[in-house]
């Protein structure tokens, strides 16, 4: 992935898609559609697609509440069997808080259980969450 700081413009580096959404009702319907299209085109099996939608639901439900400036950016890059999803433009503690918010009673933490990897990065007073989803 590129290492440019979280910025205001949706610059496309080596990301396959970059989506910036205003906090509010857009995150759920738009994010889930975009990611499901990308994964479907990559021929992901339906069970893994379903897992990815659970992750999307968790992100879209909680990420807008931790936005740095009222917008959240989702950057998606497919590499082989992996898809890396970055959630950017979160407040300084936003990414960590987002992970904590993803706890489901009886299920556990969706963002910790489903992705292959999960990391929190802080850049210029903001933070971002980097997830890797694996096809198989």
């Amino acid at each position: 992935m590129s290492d440019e700081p979280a910025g205001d413009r949706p610059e496309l580096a080596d990301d396959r898609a970059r989506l910036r959404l205003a906090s509010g009702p857009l995150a759920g319907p738009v994010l889930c559609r975009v990611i499901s299209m990308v994964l479907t085109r990559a021929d992901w099996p339906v069970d893994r697609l379903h897992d990815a939608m659970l992750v999307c639901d968790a992100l879209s439900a909680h990420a807008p509440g931790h936005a740095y400036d009222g917008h959240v950016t989702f950057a998606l890059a497919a590499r082989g069997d992996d898809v890396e999803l970055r959630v950017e433009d979160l407040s300084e503690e936003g990414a960590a808080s987002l992970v904590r918010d993803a706890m489901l009673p009886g299920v556990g933490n969706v963002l910790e259980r489903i992705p292959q990897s999960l990391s929190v990065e802080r850049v210029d007073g903001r933070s971002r969450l980097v997830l890797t989803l694996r096809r198989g």
Partner: protein
Amino acid sequence: MNEHGKLGTAKKRPGEAMKPDMELALWARAENIAIVRHALGGLGEAFEISDEKLSDIRLAVTEACSNVVVHAYPEDSHAHRGPPDPGHADRGPATPAAKPSARARGWGTMEISATMLADELVIVVRDWGQGIRPRPDSPGLGLGLSLIAALAQTVQLGHDTQEHTEVRMTFALSDEFAEPGSAVPDIAATAVASRPQPLRGTGDGRP
């Protein structure tokens, strides 16, 4: 409160400084137009846009994106120079360093932004390509731009302050104002509405 007010996204007045509600940046490839259409479907769901209006919006935006895919980044364009990342040849160059100039910074990309105003939706399709110019070898059928003009309330073609080539479309969401292709407030849009102009087309009206 209008029908969108309950959704929690701040409504904006025309002319107000604003950030778009949605910005989507993708490689300008035909297969990515489907992603744009799905994203617009999500936008329509969130803002409770009627199926009929959403169909019009999708069709117009699809035409604008198709113009980017077909015309913005021709093979001999300077914006196309620079070796693609050999490991990711299907995605174009992987790093900004592979791009030869600031103008080519967004190599092969298209950006779609959507801003909800009080009673209208403004959608802008941008690219970093060669700009709007006649193209004698255009493969287009000549329907794209006139179709956009027929479906949108206003259409503006031009460049923004960052050298993007952009097609700016306004769609009325209230039936009271919805007369597609009739309310055209500026010179560029008037030209588009009255006589199809080449977008990146042949010079004979075929975009």
